[in-house]
């Protein structure tokens, strides 16, 4: 079984995100970039399936500038077999990403696509679902457990207020939630090996996909700074304020 894992290069989770001085976009110049944490979980899950003898080949895919090669190398160092970069300088919306991934699926013919449920930059939570829709495949989102059987996959999903267990036929799109697994530390020998694994680069234009933006950004703003707290004299005053001012009780 072949697995395709899309990975996105995002601002590292430990970096405090700021806007550019003109407010036009998030400032990603010279800040630490990493693989989207949910995608890391997706790569880890694919490797575990390979180690369990379920999967044969793992292909990591990223869409973006040449800089994205570093997250693909990370995926290769974790254990992916080969990598594909669809090169573009444009910032793509989830629909464009899903359309491109549909083309990748057409070329690679995987039985499973494991995506992060969302990227920590855009937080859109759409690409995986759109990809399944475009392919006409079943989708199992927010997976916290994934079992591959003879007839398909059994997926435990994290939903509001509990867990839902569903069965899907393959091929399918699975998106990962935080508790699916804990990604491993990459080993030094595997980092060394990763640079010898194949990494193909294809220009976005070669796919002939309409990736024009459908959305218009009206404005961006940093979260409002927290205002100073108020000291209350006693519990009675606290309760009064919660009731009358904050109106939370």
């Amino acid at each position, binding site marked *: 079984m072949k697995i395709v894992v899309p990975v996105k290069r995002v601002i590292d989770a*430990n970096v405090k995100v700021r806007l550019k001085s003109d407010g036009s976009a998030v400032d990603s110049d010279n800040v*630490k970039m990493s693989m989207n944490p949910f995608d890391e979980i997706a790569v880890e899950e694919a490797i575990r399936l390979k180690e369990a003898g379920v999967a044969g080949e793992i292909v990591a895919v990223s869409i973006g500038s040449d800089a994205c090669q570093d997250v693909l190398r990370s995926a290769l160092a974790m254990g992916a077999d080969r990598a594909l970069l669809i090169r573009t300088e444009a910032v793509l919306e989830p629909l464009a990403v899903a359309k491109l991934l549909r083309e990748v699926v057409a070329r690679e013919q995987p039985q499973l696509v494991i995506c992060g449920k969302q990227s920590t930059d855009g937080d859109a939570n759409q690409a995986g679902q759109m990809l399944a829709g475009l392919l006409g495949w079943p989708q199992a989102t927010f997976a916290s457990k994934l079992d591959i059987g003879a007839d398909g996959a059994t997926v435990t999903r994290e939903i509001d207020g509990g867990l839902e267990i569903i069965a899907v036929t393959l091929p399918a799109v699975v998106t990962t939630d935080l508790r699916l697994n804990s990604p491993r*530390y990459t*080993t*030094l020998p*595997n*980092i060394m090996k990763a*640079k010898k694994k194949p990494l193909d680069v294809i220009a976005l234009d070669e796919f002939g996909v309409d990736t024009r933006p459908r959305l218009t950004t009206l404005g961006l703003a940093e979260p409002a700074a927290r205002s100073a707290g108020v000291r209350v004299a006693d519990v009675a005053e606290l309760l009064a304020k919660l009731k009358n001012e904050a109106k939370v009780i």
Partner: protein
Amino acid sequence: MTYQAPLKDIRFALNELAELPAVCSLPGYEDASVELVDAILDEGARFAEEVLAPINKQGDKGARLDGETVTAAPGFKNAWQQYVDAGWVGLRAPYEFGGQGLPALVAIAAEEMWCSANLAFSLAPLLTLGAIEALNHHASDELKALYLPKMASGEWTGTMNLTEPQAGSDLAQVRTRAVPQDDGSYRISGQKIFITWGEHDLAENIVHLVLARLPDAPAGVKGISLFVVPKFLPGADGTPGARNDLRCVSLEHKLGIHGSPTCVMSFGDQGGAAGYLVGEANKGLGYMFTMMNHARLGVGVEGMAVSERAYQQAVAYARERVQSRAVGSPDAAGVAIIKHPDVRRMLMTMKAQIEAQRALAFVAAAALDRAARHPHPQEKARNQALVNFLIPIVKGWNTEQANEITSLALQVHGGMGYIEETGVAQYYRDARITAIYEGTTGIQALDLIGRKTAAEEGATARALLAEVQATADKLATAGFASLSANLKSAAADAERCVAFILESFAAAPQRAAAGSVPFLKLMGILLGGWQLGRAALIARERMGEEDADVDFLHAKQVTARFFGEHLLPQVSGLAAAILHGADSVLELDDGQF
């Protein structure tokens, strides 16, 4: 997060100042590249931050000795297993025994992160690597085949058993005995002290390298041999077998690095521990010297690394702690103490020295790689001389200043810094040993004025001073007037001191020695300033590039200026003490102290 690897500055020092791309093109290092090193540093940083740093504080509670068994501090065994699984021990271990054989420059950058994250832990792999290096250079093929693969993987750890109660800095006093046996092995008996990670539960076997004397050995340094003495005697297939006749009899109660068990080791209480001669008899001390450059460079990095950790904590506290109105402000509201000029001065003093030390240590590591691998004999020799000269400076200056820098970090915290729970006191205590072990600062300074300066008639010292001058000239043209002037004046002082040492070393060695530590510090400050001068020139050039990291490059230039204005002026005071202060050091009778 309690530690964040300073990857930007590490990469700047590696790529721009220590010229990593050139090191990667040396024969035998073709597998290395800037991209590969980037990936290694990213993953190493993650390991240091997420696995090693969080257990540093619990390591401070120390290892435990029950009977002959030492249990490492909580979390250490698990961290070691993860470290081994990730293959980090092999970073600079030889390729033919399962390591990656990467350049010393790359290893040093990774080691900085291990040491910052957890100095006590980092000593286990560092000692193991030292033992690997010694065996790889000098042991027979049989010994190498038996021990090195297990050590390069980290399944077994290594130790250095040099010191005895009467033999500290002076190893000529070593008394441990080695008696030859019919089967070609030796029976080792004696007591060794200060054995770092001498006994522990991290690994299935511990390989002790032990200095001892054969029965017919000549007295003094020419009668010391080196032996492999494993805790468990390995069978031919490498499986640990019978327990050898050696044990840990006590753990030292130290000032710091409590997570690293410092053992008193007793060999041969039941008739003699089985040991195997490394290389030739009576050459043990010489063998120790072959790995000393890397070991001393490593300790210099330890000092800088602990300073970095303490600095990070001081910055975080200074940003958070609100206290007093801003000096001269009519607004009575308190401000974060990072706004107060003297707190800024302390933070800059730490930052400037750490960045200078990192640069100098990495430049020395690159010279170590060039000395080992450069195809042209002349370049090889030039770099070897450079390494030899820089090592005592990096070791001595970085670690002496680590005491000052960690003390400043504590000072930034005010009274809270003196409270152990705050955590910064641990760095202050941990740093203290670095100026002592692997040769005290005094030993480094004697090495610097003797073998490294006088013996070669100041050739390397003066070559470096010429480079400092050249950088100072460029700085003047580039608009760094004050830094340039400060560098030039410091270089002129240094030249006077070199001349004094050359002149006095033969005629009045006591007078040269009296100023040796000030000379070491002077060279540290001068060469550190030189590196920051180089950095400032590069930073100014890069500022104009597209996608330039303007913030970082601007800070680099200001940091260099600060170093020029606050640290380089110390050179003239040190020079005065070196040139004119020897007599008052020597004059009193011993009884007058």
